[in-house]
């Protein structure tokens, strides 16, 4: 069985995330899909499985075009998606989740619990998953929710299963088991497996064919045997990796500590984190998803309330006083998700740029428009955001311009400490380079930067030193020039 994606295009507002991507997936094979954050991997899988509708292009199975307008259509044709978080109904049992939406049941509407149980037992046997069929799905850890989705796909007789970052949250042995299962499903049952992953090593080891996407475009498809991790890296980034990062200016001797964190804790997410950032220094925070990077930044900024520990900005304690207290001392946060936390997407870019400094341009409660135009114009110029777009709603801007606007919000305030979470998630390479220059430029002007990123190369390329987080703790510290392998090992990846 072949599934061919032909000329798939998808855009959101002003942003095109897939540009005429074509790809053929074969039954019995494991097909790797790699690319940087925002390259379009997940969107492509979601188009294939009906979760989002492409603007143009078509999907053909064995040469026959099939119309896929919803997940229901996709499932009818045997195309299933398994997400990282697991699309489950928390209040239902494992068994009910596995057979959710599957067929009419007995007598055209009655449920068949005994039959479901029998079929589920067979599926569990086939996959080797250890799940209690009557457990409430919402009580299970993410790993098991993902298993429910895989079982659901198999229960529906899927002929193609797309696994979106299936191993991102798994410890080593569990990840290996899952990849072995994926191979088995392909070889034994002739299912086409699509494996989306950031871990290039596992992609090369478990896939037959690998496709690289970059900025929503198909770059290359080749047999895994002919590729090395370096090849993939080059194809993903589009240029030699080393050239991407600006060399940060050296931190002057005796530069004052602008941010000091001592024993910061919150539940199990952050456990006793201590760190210092000096003026002009870029400190990187590396670590796996869920290691506590984002949570640490939010606690430092005051977005969440810590359970213990202390945050000192410019020599003043701000622990637990909320974002305004940190902002008053010159701190700013570029949050993890610009759409959910960074921007008011329905308002104009100009209004978003002005948002964090409204009180600075207030007279008798009124906005001083002229002062605002000047301040916003200056920031836009520094950012390289084109002036004409400033009046348009933020959602019409490209991902790169949106992300720069989030930085711009703080530029208007002349920050002294900038907390940056995933600075370049979902932006194109050109914008990425500019954002990196922007961060390096701010540090050169004496701003202390604490930057978290899930891209180890980005942290290593930009930061003066790198702290590695693992299970809510700082597990290691590396100087500039450390190898990605060492950092990842410290993070608990290998």
């Amino acid at each position: 069985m072949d599934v061919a994606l032909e000329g798939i295009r998808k855009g959101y507002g002003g942003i095109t995330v897939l540009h005429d991507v074509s790809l053929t997936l074969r039954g019995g094979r494991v097909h790797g899909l790699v690319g940087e954050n925002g390259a379009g991997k997940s969107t492509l899988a979601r188009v294939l499985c009906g979760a989002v509708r492409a603007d143009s292009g078509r999907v053909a199975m064995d040469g026959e075009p099939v119309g896929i307008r919803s997940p229901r259509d996709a499932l009818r044709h045997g195309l299933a998606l398994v997400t990282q978080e697991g699309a489950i109904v928390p209040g239902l049992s494992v068994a009910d989740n596995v057979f959710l939406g599957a067929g009419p049941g007995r007598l055209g509407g009655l449920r068949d619990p005994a039959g479901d149980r029998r079929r589920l037992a067979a599926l569990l046997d086939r996959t080797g998953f250890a799940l209690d069929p009557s457990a409430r799905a919402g009580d299970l850890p993410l790993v098991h929710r993902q298993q429910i989705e895989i079982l659901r796909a198999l229960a529906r007789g899927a002929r193609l299963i797309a696994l979106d970052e299936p191993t991102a949250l798994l410890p080593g042995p569990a990840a290996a088991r899952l990849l072995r299962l994926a191979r088995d499903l392909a070889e034994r049952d002739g299912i086409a497996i699509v494996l989306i992953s950031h871990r290039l090593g596992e992609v090369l080891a478990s896939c037959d064919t690998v496709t690289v996407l970059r900025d929503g475009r198909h770059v290359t498809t080749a047999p895994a045997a002919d590729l090395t991790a370096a090849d993939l890296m080059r194809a993903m980034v589009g240029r030699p990796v080393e050239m991407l990062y600006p060399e940060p200016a050296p931190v002057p001797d005796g530069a004052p500590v602008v941010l000091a964190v001592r024993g910061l804790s919150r539940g199990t997410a952050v456990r006793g984190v201590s760190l210092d950032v000096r003026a002009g220094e870029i400190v990187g925070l590396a670590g796996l998803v869920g290691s506590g990077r984002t949570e640490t930044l939010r606690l430092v900024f005051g977005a969440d309330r810590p359970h213990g520990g202390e945050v000192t900005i410019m020599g003043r304690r701000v622990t637990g006083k909320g974002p305004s207290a940190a902002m008053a001392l010159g701190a700013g946060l570029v949050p993890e998700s610009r759409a959910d936390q960074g921007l008011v997407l329905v308002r104009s870019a100009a209004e978003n740029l002005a948002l964090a400094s409204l009180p600075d341009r207030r007279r008798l409660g009124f906005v001083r428009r002229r002062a605002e135009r000047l301040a916003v114009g200056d920031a836009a110029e520094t950012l390289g955001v084109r002036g004409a777009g400033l009046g348009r709603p933020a959602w019409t801007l490209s991902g790169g311009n949106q992300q720069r606007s989030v930085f711009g919000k703080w530029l208007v305030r002349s920050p002294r400490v900038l907390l940056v979470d995933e600075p370049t998630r979902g932006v194109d390479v050109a914008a990425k380079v500019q954002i990196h220059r922007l961060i390096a430029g701010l540090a050169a002007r004496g701003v202390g930067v604490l930057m978290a990123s899930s891209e180890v190369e980005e942290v290593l390329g930009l930061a003066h030193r790198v702290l590695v987080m693992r299970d809510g703790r700082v597990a290691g510290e590396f100087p500039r020039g450390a190898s990605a392998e060492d950092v990842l090992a410290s993070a608990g990846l290998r």
Partner: protein
Amino acid sequence: MRYAAVRDHGIVVALAGLVVALSLSTGTFLTKGNLVNVLDQAVVVGLLACGMTLCIVCGVFDLSVSAVLAVSAVVAVLVTRSAGVPAGYAAGVATGVLMGTVTGLVVALSRVHSFIATLALSIVYRGLAVVITGGAIVYPHAGQLDAFQALSLPTVLGGITVPTLVLAGAAAACWVLLAATTLGRAVHAVGGNAEAARLSGIRVAPVRVAVFAVSGACAGTAGLVMTTRAGSAQAGLGSLLELTAIAAVVIGGTSILGGEGAVWRCLAGVLILTLISNGFNLLGWDPTYKQVIEGLLILAAVTLDRLLRRTASGSPAR
């Protein structure tokens, strides 16, 4: 972009079309008496809709406004009885502000969705009005009645009534507040993305309390207008007008999802609803159909809003 143009100008075109149609189809529409009457009829809903616009742009609903209106009206009459007309007027508006602030505090502190919280509070307030009046209709003293009703009289400005001028003043104030002040910016931001606003240093709870307070002030003023017109007040006054106000806001093109909207839009919405009523009267049509048209209008406005927002909702960052 195309849809945005429809929303920006469509409402004005619709309003103008309605005026032209009524002018052509009836001989009585374009008379001074009728126009003064139309504006006067728009006042109560107009006042409520101004406050409601601020709430909806801020991402909250205030379903308590008609109950606040009733309590304010009752308080205005009772204070008039004991302390005179000026004190009664002041007490009516002050009651609205106070109750609006309480509503805002309850919503902000309880973190219950504003729709449910204000629905519950509206029942409480309505009950309060019954308790205060003992279920009876309250009147000012006979000697005070003329002075009390002075608010609802025509003025020298071409016969336009005082309430119409009150609405104009309140609308102008809300308009400036929303469009030109830093609070207005915060209102937009909180309604558009409360988390982004919070992480930009905006204190979300006080902003929400402020819009409820303004909504309460508008409701109190509307109560004053109603009670001075009637010369009396009762606990059931203005029942369900909050829904008409929301309808007017939505028909005007303010987004039900928060973050986008304008006071002039709600005025356009109110005028459209009032003109439809007026048209049915003048043409002698069966008023039953009026509801059908109003309902369809609301549906059309919300559908258009959804179309506009659909492109905005799916950002690739999610």
